């Protein structure tokens, strides 16, 4: 990324628009849209976390919903037991997240390719069934969270403050990820993606690098889970279903794996299309509106296929490449 390239400008524009959303929703008197954008940012954050190992490390994890679930359950279970401090939530979530990621990661990273995809799925499924069997915490029905995490100086009960908290976390993560990728660490990681054997012959302890990347990527998802639980004030095993892991991959690939902001764009594309199609009201003739509202997944499916067939680097990746004129 060169400074002030068209792509950087596009990124700045996107982030600036995100910052102005609360103002816009206040002007049109529809605070509801704030929640949608907040949700997009949270899933964008999770997809961004996944993309650290998917796009830059070549490790396709089909189990990152597990970490989303760990973050959400940390908030839900601690609040259930009357511990409302957000700092405690964060500390516990990260502690568990790091422990699980190190254990799971060191097993999973023995494999690569398709086997890696499936073994990460296996662990996520085990955590899913574990959550389902937690009867005292709602089992399959999940758990309502009576109040949002208490972080002291920011009141997350206020929708705008919650939005900006999520925004700041996203910005900070983007910033951190940019430095990570362009550091020596990131170079090694990308080197492992293109040729791991060469990296090993060069004397790089590849496994240790990959495990560290895996743990960092998992923690981003843990934080996203923590924010998701705070946004919806609800937590259930559904957050850990394999479909969610699949959606995270789809978001990253749809937006463009090779870019930092791509996963966020992918999350926005997927969730916005879902939102628009499922409440379509354009006044089209022959009841087309109602038909698409009822069957919005069909056009969404076709859209995804078309993106793959026509835009080889994903939505944002394509735009970014086209603008910088180096497709």
């Amino acid at each position: 990324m060169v400074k002030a390239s068209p792509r950087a400008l596009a990124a700045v524009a996107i982030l600036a628009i995100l910052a102005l959303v609360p103002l816009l929703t206040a002007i049109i008197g529809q605070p509801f849209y704030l929640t949608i954008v907040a949700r997009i940012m949270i899933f964008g954050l999770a997809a961004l976390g996944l993309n650290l190992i998917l796009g830059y490390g070549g490790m396709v994890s089909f189990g990152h919903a597990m970490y989303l679930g760990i973050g959400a359950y940390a908030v839900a279970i601690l609040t259930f037991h009357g511990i409302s401090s957000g700092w405690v939530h964060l500390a516990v979530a990260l502690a568990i997240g790091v422990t699980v990621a190190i254990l799971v990661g060191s097993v999973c990273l023995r494999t690569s390719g398709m086997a890696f995809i499936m073994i990460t799925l296996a662990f996520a499924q085990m955590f899913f069934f574990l959550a389902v069997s937690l009867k005292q915490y709602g089992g399959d029905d999940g758990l309502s969270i009576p109040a949002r995490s208490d972080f002291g100086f920011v009141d997350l009960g206020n929708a705008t403050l919650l939005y900006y908290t999520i925004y700041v976390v996203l910005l900070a993560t983007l910033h951190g990820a940019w430095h990570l990728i362009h550091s020596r660490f990131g170079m090694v990681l990308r080197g492992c993606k293109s040729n791991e054997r060469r990296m090993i012959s060069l004397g790089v302890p590849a496994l240790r690098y990959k495990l560290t990347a895996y743990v960092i990527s998992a923690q981003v998802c843990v934080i996203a889970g923590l924010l998701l639980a705070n946004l919806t004030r609800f937590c259930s095993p559904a957050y850990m279903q394999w479909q969610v892991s699949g959606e995270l991959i789809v978001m990253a690939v749809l937006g463009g794996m090779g870019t930092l902001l791509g996963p966020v764009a992918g999350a926005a594309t997927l969730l916005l299309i879902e939102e628009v199609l499922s409440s379509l009201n354009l006044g089209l003739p022959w009841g087309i509106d109602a038909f698409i509202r009822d069957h919005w997944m069909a056009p969404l499916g076709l859209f995804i296929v078309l993106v793959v067939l026509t835009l080889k680097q994903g939505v944002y990746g394509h735009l970014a490449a086209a603008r910088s004129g180096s497709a």
Partner: protein
Amino acid sequence: MTAGLLLTQTLNGVQLGVLLFLLSAGLTLVFGIMNFVNLTHGSLYMMGAYFAAAAYNASDSFLVAGLVGIPATIVLGLLVERIALSTLYTRDHLDQVLATFGLILFFNEVVRIVWGPSSIYMNVPSTLSGTIDLFGLPYPAYRFAIIGVGLVVALALYLLIHRSRIGMLIRASASNPAMAGALGVNIKLLNALVFGLGAGLAGLAGLMAGPIMSVQPGMGEPILILTLVVIVTGGIGSIRGAFYGALMVGIVDTMGRAFLPTLLREVFERSIAQAAGPAIASMLIYLLMASVLALRPQGLFPVKYG
């Protein structure tokens, strides 16, 4: 726990395994030979079941259901391959995952538009509707039929891949497609053939599963996940691996569901056993897969070409 019950449960496990084999065989061929991640395989299975059920409801004959359902699935599979997927063979696996994921959404909605959201009716052929007595415990004749069909398909696939000329070409293009192409093999045709074969097997699985499971939108995804578990456990690309992997997954899953809660109750309190039993039983196949992959990342029976 009587011997009869143990035998019944083993048969149940084998029967589930055989059904999984029908699906895994097609998926593993496409995956191993064409190097293509085809998530639509579950949708083809669903479409096969729907085509068969529609033909069954129109004709009231299971034979007609099979004669219509399987070829229709093959045609659909080939159409999908031609229109959407054939350009993706050279692309990244993740692009293939994304495109076929889109197709899953599309097919599930199409089924809902055409046949509605509820499950549709299909029944076993009347000649197979009875039960067969096994040491005092009745066992459904139709499930025996599934086992029989599965074993026949396994044998036929073995002969096709390992004993026929086409099988030789398939193996050749799997190990080195460029070289096989240079030697004059029509790779494009071969790919279509393999894809069609996979679709046909998925259609057959849909036909056989139709009468025992509910034919409904989205029925393909849970079984797709099981199928993926089977092929990575068995070893990607290997028919033999798919066969043994499917039987293992089928038997482990069935035995876990049948006996684990009872066993746990011997050790723990009833309430703990009731909470933990189903959870551990559900985890069992994933535990199996994780341990296999951790020890043998290439799977239990990897392909041994050239």
